[in-house]
């Protein structure tokens, strides 16, 4: 397969172009991403955008990567075809990602001799319209002009995203004219397109897809404290309070976040909270309360590199052990880690179903990469997601912790029925009174334990792709990048195993992995926490490919890493 080679002579080839745009926070890199992704999509290309940014509101140096192609994209690449530096610092910041053929667009005021640079009067042109901030719209115009794409498509996208769209359209038009006139450059040829196929797709980031999943699951309450990179879900749900009846409160701290969520479920809501590692650490005690009182909870945990404050705006799959072992005393829980937009929706929905049905905390593990990456998704039929209720009207002799065969006590909520609902964090008897009686303790421990056993029948098996004897195993957000790395390698020995259901794992189900002669685990962390989980289930891993530098994996780099790791096998 020649998918990624820059050989454009045959138009049937699958071709992608990567554009990296860099600039200080406040220069509008994010806005440029929105406009261009929308405009490229409207022009008929498959689009993929991901960003990396510093933990500051102004200044510094941030980038966004926009990939366009004539086939579905699901991963970022490190090396780029085109780089656009909105300021001088960006030239340096993006340097490691240039190749000999990278085209670098810079302002005329600075030059970069080592690369094929194209000087553009960005600053001067923007200033003509009264503000340096128009530099982003100007460059959107330049790129569209260089590619000789329809100008009107770009202008329509600008209309969507700007309040002062008239002036921005003028700026873009000037950029477009400039771009058209640029000569003597060897541009990567734009891939052939199928507008009809692309128009059917929806463009959104992981945050939004998770949000739709939670709504599909009937989420009608969210209480959260802002923390990158989880805040997007809180923002999304806040915007949805205008569309749906959703109770929302920004809590005073993460302890209150989860306590309010538990209060919400106790009172009859389908409630959730969103947080990142540090905030989740504060929720530990309340998580344990969820386990003991058997009060459902859904927690969206968007990971970022730790320990402590770590890298607040960057990505890592570093909180698996935290999510798995947080909370004192054993109690059943579920960990889900979606790896595509479809999985964000399906597992977001499933989180509410499982929490309600099993009366347990369910943690949805995302990360900055997944949360902030814009990808494409096909149609979703929301009528197929039923918003269920697993509660009953209480009878007079209702007992909240009635012992049952599978350990799940029928849950009732106050105000519905004749019984009283006594939910308690102390050890309790069946009606919810405090007890220290050792036989009752044993009975309740066993009851909670049986819920863990019952949960095993819900476990969703990993997705195994390929017939090769070497399994490349990943979990969560790395799904797309591993897939592309394997396509690039085009090696029949390699198979892809993706886990989105992380905990509990089913011992029997994992025997499907026994057929692979070698197992290589890919994790965006330093502790290989998932490989440890596999080992607990008698799955031995031969090689671990780990990365914890603040970036998610890049398909081209991962390709090399896998190639390298194959040498270790023989």
């Amino acid at each position, binding site marked *: 397969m020649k998918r990624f080679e820059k050989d454009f002579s045959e138009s049937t080839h699958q071709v992608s172009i990567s554009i990296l745009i860099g600039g200080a926070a406040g220069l509008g890199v994010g806005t440029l991403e929105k406009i261009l992704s929308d405009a490229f999509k409207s022009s008929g290309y498959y689009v993929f955008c991901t960003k990396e940014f510093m933990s500051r509101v102004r200044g510094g140096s941030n980038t966004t990567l926009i990939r366009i192609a004539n086939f579905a994209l699901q991963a970022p690449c490190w090396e780029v075809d085109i780089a656009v530096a909105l300021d001088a610092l960006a030239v340096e910041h993006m340097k490691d990602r240039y190749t000999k053929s990278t085209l670098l667009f810079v302002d005329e005021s600075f030059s970069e001799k080592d690369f094929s640079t194209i000087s553009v009067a960005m600053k001067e042109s923007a200033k003509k319209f009264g503000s340096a901030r128009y530099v982003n719209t100007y460059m959107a115009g330049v790129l569209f002009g260089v590619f000789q794409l329809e100008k009107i498509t770009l202008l329509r996208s600008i209309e969507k995203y700007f309040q002062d769209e008239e002036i921005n359209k003028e700026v873009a038009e000037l950029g477009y004219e400039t771009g058209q006139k640029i000569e003597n450059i060897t541009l990567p040829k734009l891939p052939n397109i199928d507008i009809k196929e692309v128009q059917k797709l929806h463009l959104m980031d992981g945050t939004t897809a998770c949000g739709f999943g939670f709504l599909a699951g009937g989420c009608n309450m969210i209480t959260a404290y802002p923390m990158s990179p989880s805040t997007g879900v809180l923002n999304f749900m806040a915007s949805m309070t205008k569309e749906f009846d959703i109770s929302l409160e920004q809590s005073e701290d993460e302890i209150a976040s989860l306590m309010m969520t538990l209060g919400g479920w106790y009172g009859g809501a389908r409630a959730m909270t969103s947080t990142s590692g540090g905030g989740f650490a504060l929720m530990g005690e309340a998580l344990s309360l969820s386990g003991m009182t058997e009060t459902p909870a859904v927690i969206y945990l968007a990971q970022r590199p730790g320990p402590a404050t770590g890298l607040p705006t960057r990505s890592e799959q570093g909180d698996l052990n935290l999510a798995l072992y947080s909370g004192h005393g054993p109690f059943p829980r579920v960990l889900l880690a979606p790896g595509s937009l479809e999985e964000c929706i399906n597992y977001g929905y499933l989180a509410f179903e499982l929490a309600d049905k099993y009366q347990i905390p369910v943690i949805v593990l995302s990360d900055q990469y997944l949360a902030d990456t814009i990808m494409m998704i096909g149609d979703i039929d929301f009528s197929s997601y039923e918003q269920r209720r697993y509660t009953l009207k209480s009878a007079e002799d209702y007992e909240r912790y009635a012992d049952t065969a599978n350990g799940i006590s029928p849950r009732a909520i106050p105000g519905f029925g004749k019984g*009283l609902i006594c939910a308690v964090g102390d050890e309790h008897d069946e009606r919810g009174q405090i007890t220290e009686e050792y036989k009752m303790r044993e009975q309740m421990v066993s009851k909670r334990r049986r819920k863990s056993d019952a949960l095993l029948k819900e476990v969703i098996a990993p997705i195994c792709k390929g017939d090769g004897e070497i399994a490349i195993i990943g979990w969560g957000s790395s799904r797309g990048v591993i897939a592309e790395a394997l396509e690039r390698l085009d090696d029949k020995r390699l198979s892809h195993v993706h886990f989105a259901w992380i905990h509990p794992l089913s011992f029997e189900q994992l025997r499907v992995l026994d057929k692979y002669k070698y197992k290589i685990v890919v994790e965006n962390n330093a502790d290989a926490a998932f490989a440890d989980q596999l080992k607990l289930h008698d799955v031995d891993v031969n090689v671990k490919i780990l990365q914890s530098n603040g970036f998610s994996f890049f398909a081209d780099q991962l390709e090399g890493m896998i190639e390298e790791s194959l040498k270790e096998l023989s």
Partner: protein
Amino acid sequence: MSHLFDRENVDVAWCPGCGNFGILKLIKEVLEELKVEKNNTVIVSGIGQAAKTPYYVDTNMFGVLHGRALPAATGIKMANPELMVIAEGGDGDMYGEGGNHFIHTIRRNVNIVHIVHNNMVYGLTKGQASPTSQKGFETKVQVNGVINEPFNPLAVALSLRAGFVSRVNIGNAEHAKGVLKAAFMHHGYALVDIFQPCVIFNKTNTYQWFKDNTYALDENHDSNDFNAALQKAFEVMPMPLGVLYQNKNSVVTFEEQIRKSDAKSLYFITHDVSRLQNLFDSY
């Protein structure tokens, strides 16, 4: 007096002579006299001797973590504003471990009755200082006596513009009952700080001490007067009892503001699928 709110077959875990018995009786009487529907009432409590109270009252209850009754109570009101919600606990629970929630629950004006048993000592952990312990109070931990300024819940609540701020002494049960009833009738957040002696670990602040060092506010105090209330909140030896402040203007509550439509329980709220579909399709 009937025993409508007595819970059957419970082993009350307090020490003989504990002030909590009086508070338990008081609460059950007030619930009954106000004809509160037990199925529609939830008492949320944290951890501590005071927080055991709801185990002995026949209503719905959510026994949570030390310090965390208020956010749980807030969550319940968010889910179902029609429920009568009481948050109950001791001074350590509500003013120490849960101090942050105390501040923000008042700011929100959640429509709950907040009952704090204030005995100026930690009972369950056996006798350490609490946030409200008086200076000089000696314990096994504060061996040279308490050096910190005692927490003033009434002044804090007033400074946050709480709509109902009161203090009572369980030694004067009749007076306490009137105030507690008023708290239940108040629309919005209502604080009732209840002085109660710990007969085991606090040999200083006894029934007699509370009697000697408090007085009931009379009609000369205008509970509508915020500045007068603030002044009263800082009065010591004797300390005033009664409703220090009540905002009688109808102040909109937290749950009245955060819900989009009516105050229906979220149990009934599912999202319109076609609207969800359209929103998704617009991306």
